[in-house]
Each structure stands twice: as structure tokens, then as C-alpha cells.
């Protein structure tokens, strides 16, 4: 008999998290990416409220997250991950390792387009990239299915005849963010009972049974390992059916490997995947009233491929319109339709298949469009229509140009009148005057979409004041990038490049080296001076730390500038390694069972100090002369000696939950309470450039915390321990700097 259930209005992501919380996974390793991030956020919120005890590990990137999950699964517990798009691709290398060494776990893939041009909306280019990794893939088309499949998934994956990792996929935004009426199990215990206990056959922590996981295996053995997996895929079809049947008894909801609506007698069938199916069903109801025989078929399982069931449900149709939300650029179609065509060919069927690539990058499917696609199918019965094409593209008007821009900045417009000179091995900077500097044209242009009072552009602009001449910027993914380049607009008046935020430093290294090589070869003027600046958020300095350190080790002539707003703000305020201890974020909630972030903030300048690059600094808009001076030095060092790294603290009123107008005051307070010391490391010598005590501006640590909603709880006596630990650590770090600052050789 079905277990007791209650109705709720929830989104796919909330429901994936609820299911995970009810199952109470041992470990979740994750890295935030829209639109899947909310799963970790809700799970963390439920954890803070004491609803689960999932050990949540914020990774340094999806590659790291997949590694954490792989490690955890070898240790024999239940493991969860969630990702999308570029995150999935960044993790992809880990996926076949996990499947072919046969450790089950559950990965939610909330589907999204894969950049470049960066698009965060739904299509299926990410999920189709992992068809060949040996993971099981089940696809939920609405929030109810997301919940149900998340309960079903571990049971399939852990089944003794399967032992494979599994992906639960669903459409970004349409399914992940749409809140619908759903039915969920009232008692966590029922869910736990359904999933049952998991006992791994082999674990990496069973000291009595030592084993070697991941051996070096070439021919002739490797192919046999793969053949095993291919056979298990076959077997998994039966297991999935079995578990679906069991779930029907448990819930009252029935699922099939392949589903159909009105397909039985249909002349034209649409074959599709995901959230569009419901829209298509609505179109069918309308068309059937007009007497048109139309239907839709959609798979719930795409790995293994239920080819018999697909064939059985579509075989009677005269025309099948296969809708791909992704393309394989093979002039045949995306993976969904290419595989459909292969299935029909294998079965000797002769149905006509028309492929349309649609809905890329979040383009919606409307009811009238679904009807148009059916009409296309009817047309194809007697006439010839293109087998493969796109649906929903815009031709554009050739006469239309991009929105008009501004004239490029000349050398003169970018002058700042600042003088920099090397005196006795130290740089001296003269002639900084804020009033005079207003004459320098700005390299950033208004019209960007940052939040009210966002500190990114005031901070970056202040830094830019210290640079004279031509500048090329490279931005990592993050708020600064997203809000300044919404196509067809740009807020950059100078050349700007975006690249994946795990790879920007490497990319800029490549640009700099090409520029230098072209100069060496005389292909561009030798006296053309360009200063190269890479801009990253603190999050980009987490996932991109490897290439940043690599760039510093190679000592390229460029500046790496981190604006630190203490979190992954673009994706909705998840903790970064730079988020300070105890601060509340969407993945470090404050509740009965948890009080904000669990570990101290990362000291990126000191990590960079270990690379021994010529110049390192910290700064903020609250001390503009100090920052501009450092920028001028940074330019000199980047152009003459090598890599520079700088960190500027940048207010995020939205997620700090602070008043927009207080941004400058709050970043000043962070320095005055010794949390964010202003200093520089010039050719290895550390100097505090501002000492709050000497400036008679020293404030209490608490005075800074009370200015932001995200830290108010730390003042509460019940959180005294965390407060004291944070204080102790910042004072320790400050004292250490001060001692170095006073020592002539440190």
C-alpha cells in the first residue's frame, strides 16, 4: 500500500534536496553552478535545521567535487553530487573512472547549455556529452519526477546486479526552478526503508580486506572490463523496471522506461525529452479535438537505451518529429534523434524521421510552436521536408547593427599623470591626486547590471586609475563578467576577454606571450605598450588557483587582480574559501545545528607570496590613494619584472545583507578591525601600508560584524566560541604581518 504523502508547492531543486535529506546521504561533494546549485543550498538549509546530517564538502571546483565523491564512494557510503553545464564537463574525466571501477553514487545533472557565449539556461548539450561515460541516466520531466527519481536512483545504482553510478537529469529552470504542486512522503523513515541499507562489496577503508582499486590495465584485460559494463547496462533495464514497479506500490505513481501519450494510433509522433513534453501534450489535446492523430513519446531512461520500448511505441507512426535540445553537428541531429534513427534502422523500420534542433540556451517551446512542429510532420507524410534543421532561429535584419558604442580610448585619454620611479630598489610613486585623476577617461562604462551599491566596479575603477596607457582585461566568470557583457552590450571600453574561471590566468598568459612573440618578430610595433590585467572573483581564485599559481610560477608579465566579495555571488552567495569563519551564506546556513561557515578564510596573498613573484598587494576603494599607488606599482612590475597579484575587498550589499550606501564604510571597517590588512610584498619585502592603530582608527572586530546581516548572529552570546576563534585567527595573522613589516628582510 502506498505510504502517507503530503502536498507541497516546490521546485525540482528543492525536491531533489528534500529526497536527499530524507535518504540522509553520507557525503555530498559539490561545487556551485547555476541551475543546480540550489540542491546543495536547500540540503544545507535542511541540515542547519537539524533535518539531516549529510556531510557537505564544498569542493574547489567540479573536478575536485567529482574527486571527493569518487573517494567517498570507494569508502563505501552513499554519495551525492549535483552539477550542470561547464561543471559537468569539468568533472567529465572522473566519470568513466567511477563507472568502470564500479562504485555507485547519485549525480543530479540539471541541464544547461555549455558555453561559450556564456548562457546559463536550459538545453541538453551537457547531459548528451556524458552518454559515453558508462553512467546510468534517468531523465525527469517535472518536479514530481525529480523527487521520485531521486528516491529511485540509489536503489537502482546500488542494486547487486548493477553497481553503477547514476545520473538523475532534469531541465534547468523549467523543471529545476518551477514550483509545482507535488506529493512527497510524510515520513523520512518510509523513504529510508524504500531505499534500504547499502552494503558495499568492496571499500577502501576495510583494513581487514586490503584491495587495490584502479589498477593499471591494458590489453587484453581492459576490453573485458568494458564488456562487463556493457552487459550490466543491458541487465540494468530489468532492474530499473523492477524498481519502478516497486516504487509504484510504494507511491502510487507509475513510471516506464519509455512513455507515450496518444501515440497508439498517431500518424505523427513527436519524440522529445524533458519539460517540453508537457507543452506538447497540451498541443496534442487541442489537435486531437480537430481530429488530427498526433502523439508524443518520451524516454525516462536514456542510459541504458531502452531501444525495444522506443521502437514499440513509435513504430506505427508515419512520421516522427524528433526534437533535439542539442546538436551533434553531424547533419543528422543531436544524440536523441541520431540514436532514434539507429534504433529504427536496426529494427528494419521505415518510418520517416524529421529532426529539429530547438530550444537551445533556454529558448522556450510554446504551444503554438508544438502545433507547428506537428504540422511539419503531416507535411512530411507526402512532401519532402528537410530532414535536419533548426527550429526557432532568427534570421536577423542585415541592416541592423549592434547598439552604437563609444570611441575607443586613445593613449592620451588613458594618461593619469602619475610618476613611478625605482629608487634604491624600491618603487616611488608621485603625483596621485583624486581630483586630477577624474580627467582620465574610464575604461569601464556605465550601463552595467550590477546590483544597487555593488562594490565591484567602484573597486576596479579605482585600481584602473593607477594604470596609464593601453590595457587589455580578461575576466573570469562571476558577477563582474556577467553584469558587464549581456549581449549585445558591453560595459568595457577597452578589449575584454572572458574565459572559464578555472582557466583565466593561463589564457591571459597565452595572450601576453603571443603579444610578446609578435613584437619580437616585428609583426606589431615594438613600442606598443599594453598592460594585461586578469580580473577574478574570490571564487575564481578557488577553482582557478592552479592556473593562477602556474602563471605566477612562470612569471608572465601580467596582473592578476582578485575582487573579493567573500563568496560565489553570481551563483547566489555560496561560500567560497575566502568567506570568513562563521559567516552565513547559502551553503553555510545558520540554524539550530550549524552556525555559518565552518573553516577560516583563505589567505590568498600569502599563498601567492610562496610563488615569489615581484609584487603582491591588498587594497580597497575605502583607501583610494593607497590602492591607486599600488596599481601604479603593479603596472611597473608587470611590465618590467613579471607577475603581480592583488586582492581588493569588494562590498556585495545583496548577499552581505548590508545597506547599499554603507559599502565603502564596511570595507573600511574590515581593515580597521584588522580583518583585511592593507599591505604589499615588494620583491619579497612585506610592508603594512596602513596600520589602524597608528591611524587611530582601530575598531573592534564586532563593530565590523554588526554592519552586515550575514554576520549579526556572531554577536549572539551563544556563538561566542566561533567569534573568539575568528578573532584569534585574524589577530594572529595580523601580528605575523606586522612583525614581517618591521623586519627589513621579511
Amino acid at each position: 500500500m502506498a505510504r502517507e504523502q503530503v502536498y507541497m508547492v516546490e521546485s525540482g531543486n528543492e525536491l531533489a534536496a528534500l529526497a536527499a535529506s530524507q535518504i540522509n546521504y553520507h557525503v555530498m561533494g559539490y561545487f556551485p553552478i547555476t541551475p543546480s546549485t540550489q540542491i546543495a543550498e536547500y540540503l544545507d538549509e535542511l541540515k542547519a535545521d537539524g533535518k539531516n546530517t549529510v556531510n557537505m564538502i564544498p569542493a574547489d571546483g567540479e573536478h575536485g567535487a567529482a574527486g571527493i565523491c569518487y573517494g567517498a564512494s570507494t569508502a563505501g557510503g552513499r554519495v551525492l553530487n549535483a552539477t550542470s553545464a561547464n561543471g559537468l564537463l569539468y568533472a567529465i574525466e572522473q566519470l568513466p573512472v567511477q563507472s568502470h571501477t564500479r562504485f555507485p553514487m547519485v549525480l543530479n545533472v540539471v541541464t544547461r547549455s555549455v558555453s561559450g557565449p556564456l548562457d546559463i539556461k536550459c538545453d541538453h548539450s551537457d547531459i548528451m556529452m556524458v552518454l559515453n561515460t558508462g553512467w546510468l541516466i534517468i531523465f525527469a520531466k517535472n518536479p514530481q519526477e525529480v523527487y521520485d527519481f531521486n528516491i529511485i536512483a540509489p536503489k537502482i545504482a546500488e542494486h547487486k546486479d548493477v553497481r553503477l553510478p547514476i545520473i538523475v537529469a532534469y531541465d534547468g529552470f523549467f523543471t529545476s526552478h518551477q514550483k509545482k504542486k507535488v506529493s512527497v512522503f510524510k515520513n523520512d523513515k518510509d523513504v529510508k526503508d524504500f531505499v534500504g541499507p547499502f552494503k558495499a562489496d568492496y571499500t577502501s577503508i576495510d583494513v581487514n580486506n586490503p584491495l587495490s582499486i584502479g589498477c593499471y590495465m591494458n590489453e587484453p584485460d581492459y576490453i573485458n572490463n568494458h564488456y562487463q559494463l556493457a552487459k550490466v547496462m543491458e541487465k540494468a533495464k530489468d532492474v530499473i523496471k523492477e524498481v519502478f514497479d516497486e516504487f509504484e506500490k510504494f507511491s502510487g505513481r507509475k513510471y516506464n522506461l519509455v512513455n507515450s501519450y496518444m501515440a497508439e494510433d498517431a500518424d505523427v509522433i513527436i519524440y522529445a525529452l524533458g519539460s517540453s513534453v508537457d507543452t506538447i501534450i497540451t498541443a496534442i489535446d487541442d489537435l486531437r479535438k480537430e481530429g488530427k492523430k498526433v502523439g508524443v513519446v518520451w524516454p525516462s531512461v536514456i542510459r541504458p537505451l531502452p531501444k525495444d520500448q522506443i521502437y514499440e511505441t513509435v513504430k506505427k507512426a508515419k512520421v516522427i518529429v524528433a526534437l533535439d535540445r542539442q546538436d551533434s553537428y553531424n547533419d543528422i541531429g543531436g544524440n536523441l534523434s541520431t540514436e532514434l534513427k539507429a534504433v529504427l534502422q536496426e529494427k528494419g523500420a521505415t518510418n520517416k524521421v524529421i529532426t529539429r534542433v530547438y530550444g537551445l540556451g533556454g529558448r522556450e517551446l510554446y504551444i503554438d510552436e508544438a502545433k507547428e512542429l506537428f504540422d511539419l510532420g503531416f507535411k512530411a507524410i507526402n512532401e519532402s521536408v528537410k530532414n535536419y534543421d533548426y527550429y526557432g532561429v532568427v534570421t536577423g535584419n542585415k541592416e541592423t547593427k549592434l547598439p552604437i558604442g563609444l570611441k575607443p580610448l586613445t593613449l592620451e585619454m588613458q594618461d593619469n599623470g602619475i610618476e613611478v620611479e625605482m629608487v634604491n630598489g624600491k618603487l616611488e610613486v608621485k603625483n596621485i591626486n583624486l581630483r586630477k585623476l577624474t580627467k582620465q577617461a574610464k575604461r569601464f562604462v556605465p550601463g552595467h547590471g550590477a546590483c544597487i551599491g555593488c562594490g565591484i566596479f567602484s573597486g576596479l575603477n579605482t585600481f584602473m586609475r593607477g594604470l596609464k596607457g593601453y590595457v587589455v582585461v580578461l575576466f573570469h566568470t562571476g558577477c563582474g563578467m556577467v553584469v558587464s557583457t549581456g549581449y549585445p552590450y558591453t560595459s568595457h571600453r577597452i578589449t575584454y576577454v572572458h574565459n572559464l574561471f578555472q582557466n583565466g590566468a593561463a589564457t591571459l598568459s597565452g595572450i601576453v606571450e603571443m603579444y610578446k612573440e609578435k613584437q619580437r618578430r616585428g609583426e606589431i610595433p615594438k613600442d606598443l605598450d599594453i598592460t594585461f590585467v586578469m580580473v577574478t572573483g574570490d571564487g575564481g581564485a578557488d577553482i582557478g588557483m592552479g592556473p593562477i599559481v602556474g602563471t605566477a610560477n612562470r612569471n608572465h608579465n601580467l596582473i592578476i587582480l582578485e575582487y573579493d566579495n567573500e563568496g560565489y555571488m553570481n551563483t547566489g552567495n555560496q561560500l567560497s574559501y575566502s568567506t570568513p569563519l562563521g559567516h552565513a551564506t547559502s551553503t553555510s546556513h545558520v540554524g539550530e545545528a550549524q552556525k555559518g561557515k565552518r573553516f577560516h578564510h583563505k589567505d590568498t596573498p600569502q599563498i601567492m607570496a610562496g610563488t615569489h613573484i615581484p609584487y603582491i598587494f591588498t587594497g580597497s576603494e575605502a583607501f583610494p590613494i593607497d590602492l591607486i599607488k599600488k596599481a601604479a606599482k603593479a603596472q611597473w612590475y608587470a611590465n618590467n619584472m613579471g607577475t603581480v597579484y592583488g586582492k581588493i575587498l569588494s562590498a556585495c550589499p545583496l548577499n552581505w545583507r548590508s545597506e547599499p550606501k554603507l559599502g565603502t564604510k564596511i570595507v573600511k571597517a574590515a581593515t580597521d578591525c584588522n580583518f583585511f590588512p592593507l599591505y604589499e610584498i615588494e620583491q619579497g619585502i612585506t610592508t603594512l601600508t596602513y596600520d589602524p592603530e597608528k591611524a587611530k582608527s582601530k575598531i573592534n572586530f564586532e563593530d565590523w560584524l554588526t554592519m552586515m546581516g550575514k554576520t549579526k548572529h556572531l554577536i549572539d552570546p551563544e556563538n561566542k566560541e566561533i567569534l573568539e576563534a575568528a578573532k584569534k585567527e585574524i589577530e594572529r595573522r595580523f601580528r605575523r604581518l606586522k612583525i614581517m613589516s618591521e623586519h627589513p628582510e621579511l
Partner: protein
Amino acid sequence: MLPITNQYGLFEVRFESIGGLGANIAGKMLAEAGLKYLNLNVASFSSYGSEKTGTPIKTFVRFSDPEVPIKINSPVENPHLLVIFHENLINALPVTLGCNENTIIIVNTKKSPSEIQDMLKIPTATIGTVDAIGISLEEKVKFNGILLGAISKAIGFIKPEHIKGIFEDIIGKKYPAVLEANFRAIERGYNEVKIEKVKEKKEYSFKPFAKPSNLIGYENQIIGGLVVNPGNSFSKDLSASRNGLIPVFNSQKCTSCGMCDIVCPDLCMVFIEENGQMIMKGIDYQYCKGCLKCVQICPVKALTEGVEAEYDVKSMTVKLFTEKDTAQNHR
């Protein structure tokens, strides 16, 4: 139970809003009220790329009777209820697309329904106006409670008690003061909204719903998605991002120290060279989001806080860019 539905049995709602005003959560609350108290089928979602404050978002809510499933996942084309969360959106976006004479339109404004009709340029409709900005400043709450109160009055089937119940579920007993303030906001929205079936005006016409279209397509998109016109975001108008307050500049007091230029996140300050000296001339309000960081930093109070409605912002604006600064790249 639903006063009116379309051919799919749905009562459809569209909110036109700006990130940070609470439209997304208001949509969820409205849907939850329908499920919890009336056992309706419900769905709600928002169309936003990022959740930055100040950027336009649309939220959609659908209701149907319990036995009618909601299958459509695309945006609401012909809303039965349209809620405009900020009056400034009316001139910035085509908010009324797909409306007809049966649409109920609620607007956050001090203006009257017939003044709003002229701004919206629609022949007729039932228009409700409520000064949510004023109420929110007084009660220190977000707009959502106030607007949900007004919505409840306009559509009837969701009662103010239902909305209060959902607020109680969400805010809980943890913050009784916040809950009380929101209860007052709901009541004030309900009581203070002015709803009127406005007189028909023949000079206006309804505009049908149009899918987002674009003049830049595959024929004329520059390859690789490049933008070759530097700084072209200068043509955008961000004034709809402001929440009612503006910085007011007094040149008499200004020493042109340059501090406001450092802290302004939206790069709005206009400095011009006169006789070899840089002089602060004023603000380009086209870009000002009203954060008031400049007011905080100004050492001589040459910048002060003002209520936007009391000023003629247009005439106070000093332009940052003129035609001579612009260029079209013809590559």
C-alpha cells in the same frame, strides 16, 4: 472557484518586476495560498537569468481546479492578472503585451487608475493602484505583502487571511515583529488599493503577446558572439533600478575633491575640465541606481539624499556622453 479561466482551464498571472523587489517569492506565496487553502493546482516560476537587484524579471503563476493538471511550462502570454511591481517599468518595458479588456492590472504607484491607463496606453481594463513604495517605507517591509494584499482584493478567490497564513508559515514565530509588520502591510494593500474599471479610450489599443524577437539573428550576428562596439552599454537606461531615493547635488558646496567619483558603482559622476581644473558638474541620472554611496562619502555635504518624486530628475541630469563620444564600428 476561479473567476475566469482560459481554454486550458488556467487562471494565469504575470508579475513584471525588478530583481530585489520580491516578485519571485510573492509568486510562490500566491501559489502556496491557492494550494493550501483552496486545494487548487498551482505552478509558479520566474524568468530571470541572474538574481541581481535592479534587473527586470517576470514571474508567472498559474492556477487551475484540482482535477485540471497544469502542463504548460512556457511564459504566460495572456494574463488574467498583471502586476507591475514598479511604476518605472512601464516606460522601460512592453509590460502589457497580451493583456485584454478582462485583464486586471495592479500597479505599484501613487497615481490613479486613469493616469496609469494613459501611461500603459491601453483602451480599457480593470486597474488597481496602490502606493507600495510609500507603505513599505512606513511599515519597513518589502513590497510583496502589500501587493499580495492588493491582489487578494482584486481577484477575490485568495483572501487576505490566506496570504497571512503563508507569511506565518514562512517567517514563522521566530520574528513576531516582522510578521506583524507584514500583516499590516497585507491589510493596507487590501484596503488602500484603488480598483477601477477605467473608461474606454479609443486612441489606445491592446498589443498582442509577442515572443521575444531580435533584430540580430544568424545573418547579422558577428561571428563568435563578439561585440565590436566598445562601451555600448552607455545607451542603457537604469533609472528603473532606483527605489525612490536619489542623490541631490549642490555645486555651491562642492570642492571637486573627486571622492564621489571613486565610490560610485555606476560611474555616474560628470567632471569637466575648466581653466585647467577638473570641476564636478553633476550626475548622469540615466545610470544612477540610487545607492547613495556618494552621499555617504561626500566630505562637505554637497550631495544629499532626496526623494525622487519631489525632483525633476531630467532637468538635473548632466550628460556623461554626447554624440561626439560615440562610434559605430562598421567592420
